[in-house]
């Protein structure tokens, strides 16, 4: 007899066999079929009726199948699983639908020409091949860059005060930061409008818009940074201090580098918070159709303003332009965020 040699083969014993999958598959088919039947027979008509019935039947079928095959515990597990999937669908479906609409309607007017021209000499009714949104690109770039340059240090230093310095007013500062994050964006615009423009007598300018966005951005950056800094183990701070470092050196050389990736996320979230803000810009920047390269003086445009204005004009081409504005803004933001993420992790592999 030949000796049986056991050769180990990589295997996945936990993988479901077709036989095990079959009841679930049948359950899914039954769910859809019964839903169609119910919709056909009952007065529940239309997409909404279909969706509600589908959800109801999915929960019912999954629970029943589990109960019959196993026991009550398995049935509970199936119910919650289906509920979680439904919740996820409620988040993902609208998002995909929004993205789909933006791409569908926004890509109509898309050409490289839009990055080389503004709307100064183009009428709103002229075809999409004329004019462009360079003025909005420049305006948003100026305003958001200035706002980020102002809000990042203030936000992160605020978080450091709350988490690292733990000064006497840490609780108060945290309370104000939280309160600020609930302020409606138009209030930030009104604040700058009242103080910077009316009290101090400045006119519309990009810098005023940047100030308004800074007010909105600080709480987001500060709160996210605070959470990130809290995650840094106390051990590391003590290790730094035990080596004879001052608190400032420990924070600058140990804590902040360890939290770097999270702090970049905080800034990204801050930018995401303000990049689409319209109301504060209307009050502080004023809006324009022509390129303005001077952020300290004169009206400027920005993506939200460009979209808002074209939507208000309301003719066919201008509405297409509004969608185009949303589309281009989305792509630019995506590029910037990907770049920031890449740069924040490119320095070696951690772990």
């Amino acid at each position, binding site marked *: 007899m030949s000796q049986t040699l056991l050769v180990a083969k990589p295997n996945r014993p936990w993988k479901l066999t077709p036989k095990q999958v079959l009841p679930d598959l049948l359950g899914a088919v039954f769910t859809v079929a019964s839903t169609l039947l119910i919709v056909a027979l009952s007065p529940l008509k239309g997409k909404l009726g279909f969706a509600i019935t589908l959800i109801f039947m999915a929960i019912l079928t999954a629970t029943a199948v589990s109960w019959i095959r196993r026991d009550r515990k398995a049935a509970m597990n199936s119910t919650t699983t289906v509920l979680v999937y439904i919740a996820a669908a409620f988040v993902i479906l609208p998002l995909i639908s929004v993205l789909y609409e933006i791409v569908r309607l926004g890509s109509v007017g898309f050409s490289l020409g839009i990055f080389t021209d503004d709307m100064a000499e183009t009428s709103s009714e002229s075809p999409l091949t004329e004019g462009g949104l360079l003025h909005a690109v420049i305006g948003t770039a100026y305003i958001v860059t200035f706002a980020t340059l102002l809000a990042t240090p203030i936000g992160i230093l605020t978080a450091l005060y709350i988490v690292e310095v733990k000064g006497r007013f840490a609780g108060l500062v945290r309370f104000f930061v939280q309160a600020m994050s609930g302020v409606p964006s138009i209030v930030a615009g009104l604040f700058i409008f009242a103080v910077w423009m009316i009290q101090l007598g400045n006119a519309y300018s990009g810098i005023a818009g940047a100030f308004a966005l800074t007010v909105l951005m600080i709480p987001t950056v500060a709160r996210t940074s605070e959470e990130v800094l809290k995650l840094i*183990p106390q*051990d*590391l701070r*003590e*290790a*730094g*201090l*035990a*080596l*004879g*470092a*001052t608190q400032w*050196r*420990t924070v600058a*050389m*140990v804590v902040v*580098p*360890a939290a*770097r990736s999270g702090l970049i996320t905080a800034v990204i979230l801050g930018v995401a918070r303000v990049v689409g803000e319209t109301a504060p810009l209307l009050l502080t920047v004023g809006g324009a159709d022509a390129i303005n390269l001077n952020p300290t003086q004169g009206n400027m445009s920005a993506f939200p303003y460009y979209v808002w204005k074209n939507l208000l004009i309301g003719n066919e081409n201008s509405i297409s332009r509004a969608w185009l504005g949303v589309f281009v803004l989305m792509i630019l933001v995506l590029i910037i965020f990907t770049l920031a993420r890449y740069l924040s992790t490119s320095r*070696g*592999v*951690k*772990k």
Partner: protein
Amino acid sequence: MSSTDGKNTNNDREETMSQVTGKQSRAIQDPSTIKQPVATHSLSDVASARRAKFGQPTNGSTGLEAKGVHAWFGKKHVLEDISLDFYTGTVNALIGPSGCGKSTFIRILNRMHEFIPTASLAGQVLLDGKDVYESGVDVTKIRLRVGMVFQKPNPFPSMTIRENVLSGLKLAQIKIENSDELLESCLRRAGLWDEVKDRLSEYGGALSGGQQQRLCIARSLAVNPQVLLMDEPCSALDPGSTLRIEETIRELSSSMSIVIVTHNMQQAARVSDYTSFFLSDGGPGRLIESGTTAEIFTNPKQKRTEDYVSGKFG
């Protein structure tokens, strides 16, 4: 033998030992007699095999001394009247059950105690005869002279191995001429050089737990401390890494005094010259007995010490 050239061969180590103990010429000829007790004999044998250096103040240094130290967290009295002398060039083990204040005590020695918001204390900690808690003392200078190794290995995650070792200099803003030489000597003294010499630009987190702990030791050596405090440095490590760190401790003890908190009796018996037993009977932790390690493990004066070191409680 100078402390910086520590090549990790057996011979070198035994040389260190002979300098340290002075009288073990026989044991040195047969390396097995050093290691044998660890595996087979009782704690008291282990302790006596390693004869204590009877610490004499060297180079005019009186080392580190705690005088009547009390500590509180809020209203809770956690340490009562601890007076201990740590001579230069000795290894001092602090033993005792959990919660008896050993860690609090060593954190008092390099002023880490004050980072706990509710903490307070009484008494004096004298470093070379000067109270480290005196007003006007630069606390960062104290921590430079009294280094610390923590229970959990905590290399700085954003720094490479090289940067980790030299981080103390950067953190304390000390300029140095030849950083490569220092890097190598610190890693050699911590017994890590051979394992990491080809991967100095990798991140510290990429090392194993035992290597990370030795990296942390190397990091605290770079600023050339006079005293090294170790808070259960081996509690998270496997026996192999523990042994390497104990060797490291022995090598280091020729150039600095070491205070080590440990729950491992064997370890206290193996590495220390002096042992102090702490105990809390529900109230504040007290120093029950302190003496040479051989004394504590073979012939303790107090019944409670004997019970603890022989494993009858705790």
